[in-house]
């Protein structure tokens, strides 16, 4: 009797410790914040509830430090299992073989790869491998302050777009009118941090036939189209004074900018804005209306201790049902979600028709910024060049020629 009890208790102890060893704790790394983070935490909990033996903990690192911190974690043998990765970090992480090939997952019928546009996956492919699945496929849109347009008596970008007159000349004229008739700046093209110069600037370059790098990844910032685009922005900054000078911290959400180029997720910061705003497509240039497609994706890190479980979790996150839920914050790459009524009405601040015009309809001409694996270094040089460019008396084409010489010399 006593012996039986002992055996029972020992086997119970063994069983529980065995179950404990079976428990897999996946670490999910992200830079999400606010409601987006809450949703991810909720998804992690739901996944754990559906899959006994798997726990998912969500770890947050702010975007500015994200790639660096994850790299340090991987180097010190403390790698997260699954995580987000932004487009500009993809070449570096691919070159150092830090990502797991997911092609067995994407080849799975249930995953339904054809649901993703070919352009959406190209960044994440290398050879035959697929090293990530985008969850956000976000063309930049033009935010505009309706109140300022009204005060300056200028026809709004969306109205001009529907009339077919929304080009860069109209953009410049609108910005000048707002600067002259209100105490605000007409527009901001770049973000506050010059290191993020590509956001906003690239759309203007592409629409003028310019580029940052050509197809062989040589510097194209001094190509005729790029020079035309930079001359326009330089003139708007110093002749019209309708764009803020470098270092200026004026933000759109503060109400002192007429127009601003950013991803649609920026609308989360306009929740309490004390003015009316809308979104519109970017203006049209001599080479068409091209906007920048920003991407971020889910990846499994190669040093993950649980690659199988991590892939299963990624499959869950990238499934149509879950992507329909994250779409509220991130424009979904899956066509089935993007064109659904549920997605178009998911943001109460933006009417479905406007979202369709400014975002969904611009996707076919939107481009991803392709960079080489030494982009971090090139970006630093380019940021320095752009700071020299935005000086009152700068000779635009001379500065750009010199800049390209430096970039190609790296």
């Amino acid at each position, binding site marked *: 009797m006593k012996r039986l009890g002992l055996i029972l208790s020992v086997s119970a102890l063994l069983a529980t410790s065995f179950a404990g060893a079976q428990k897999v704790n996946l670490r999910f790394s992200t830079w999400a914040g606010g409601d987006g983070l809450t949703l991810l935490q909720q998804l992690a909990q739901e996944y754990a509830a559906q899959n006994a033996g798997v726990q998912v903990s969500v770890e947050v690192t702010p975007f500015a430090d994200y790639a660096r911190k994850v790299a340090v974690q991987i180097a010190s043998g403390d790698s997260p299992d699954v995580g987000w990765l932004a487009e500009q970090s993809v070449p570096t992480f691919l070159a*150092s*073989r830090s990502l797991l090939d997911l092609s067995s997952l994407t080849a799975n019928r249930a995953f339904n790869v054809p649901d993703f546009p070919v352009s959406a996956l190209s960044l994440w492919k290398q050879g035959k491998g697929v090293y990530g699945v985008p969850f956000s496929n976000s063309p930049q849109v033009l935010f505009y302050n309706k109140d300022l347009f009204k005060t300056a008596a200028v026809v709004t970008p969306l109205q001009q777009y529907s009339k077919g007159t929304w080009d860069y000349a109209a953009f410049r004229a609108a910005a000048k009118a707002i600067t002259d008739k209100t105490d605000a700046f007409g527009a901001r093209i770049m973000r506050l941090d010059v290191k993020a110069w590509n956001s906003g600037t690239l759309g203007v370059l592409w629409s003028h036939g310019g580029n940052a790098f050509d197809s062989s990844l040589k510097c194209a910032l001094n190509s005729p189209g790029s020079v035309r685009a930079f001359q326009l922005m330089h003139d708007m900054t110093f002749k019209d004074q309708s764009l803020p000078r470098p*270092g200026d911290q*004026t933000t759109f959400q503060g109400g002192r900018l007429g127009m601003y180029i950013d991803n649609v997720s920026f609308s989360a910061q306009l929740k309490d804005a004390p003015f009316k705003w809308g979104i519109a497509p970017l203006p049209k240039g001599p080479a068409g209306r091209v906007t920048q497609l920003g991407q971020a994706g889910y990846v499994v890190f190669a040093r993950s201790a649980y690659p199988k479980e991590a892939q299963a979790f990624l499959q869950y996150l990238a499934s149509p049902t879950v992507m329909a839920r994250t779409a509220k914050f991130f424009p979904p790459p899956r066509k089935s979600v993007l064109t659904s009524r549920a997605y178009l009405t998911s943001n109460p601040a933006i009417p479905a028709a406007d979202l369709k015009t400014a975002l969904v309809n611009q996707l076919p001409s939107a481009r991803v910024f392709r960079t080489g694996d030494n982009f971090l270094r090139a970006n*630093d040089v380019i940021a*320095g*060049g752009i*700071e*020299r460019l935005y*000086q009152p008396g700068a000779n635009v084409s001379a500065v750009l020629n010199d800049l390209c010489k430096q970039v190609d010399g790296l």
Partner: protein
Amino acid sequence: MTSGARPSRPVLGRRALNRRGREGWAGWLLVAPYVLGMLIFVIGPLVAVLGVSLTQWSLLDAPRWVGLGNYARLAADPAFGRSAAVTGVFTLGILAINISVALALASLLNVRLRGIGLFRTLIFSPVVMPVVAWALVWKFLLQPEGPVNSGLAGLGFGGANLLFDPATALWAVILIEVLKAVGLNTVIFLSALQGVPPELHEAARLDGASPWQAFWRITLPLISPTFFLVFIVTLIGALKLFTPVYVLTGGGPADATTTLILYMFKQGFQFFEFGYASAVATVLFVAVLGLTLAQWALRQRLVFYED
């Protein structure tokens, strides 16, 4: 007597040795926390940096041995040369302005006046302010449309953008750093000035020395040990200064404020080239060490009246 003392000597000696041995062990035990801490957290990383500087290492992959390759690359890197030049101007600028202003302020504060304590407090107060807060306030003041640039525009310098113009950014950063740090040097100089015996000045005045002569011939030599200390501390501080520059400009515009320490940070934490960054760190370390040793040698000739 002697024969009785002789056998006892080795015993005594052994005992003394044992005691000395025991004391030695106890001594080592007592300093162990410090020595271990020093070895693990100071000497260890220092040697590790030297080792890493001989490799190519992105953190993501395994370090690859490249010997002196990083140093050869440094020597040929024009950006490193530009950064060294920026560091030279930055360090000399801070040394010249900080020390001369601190000395002038200390002389002004070294008088007996009602309310002089208030002035001393005012000048010292930036020293106790958190450096990031100080830099952020100045960054705000120096916005393109901010109070400083608007004020300059009002004075006829239209279009001034001090912190974002490559021609003026470095000097703006130097002045902001001097304003922050000058209080400490002022207080050190003030205490040295108060140690100068007044009768020497009185005698000089009676002999017909001008105040300027008295300062150069009496005050300065008498405070030369302090002057030397302030010089070294300010020099090393300027060479190592990171936070305010990083917060104010991040090294920009167009690398105009990229001192060697920022250059090192960029190589490591922005470009993930930890081997190359460690080579920069080593060069900087050797430079600071060399300058300090040179000054130590000069001290023999330049410093008077030292105990």
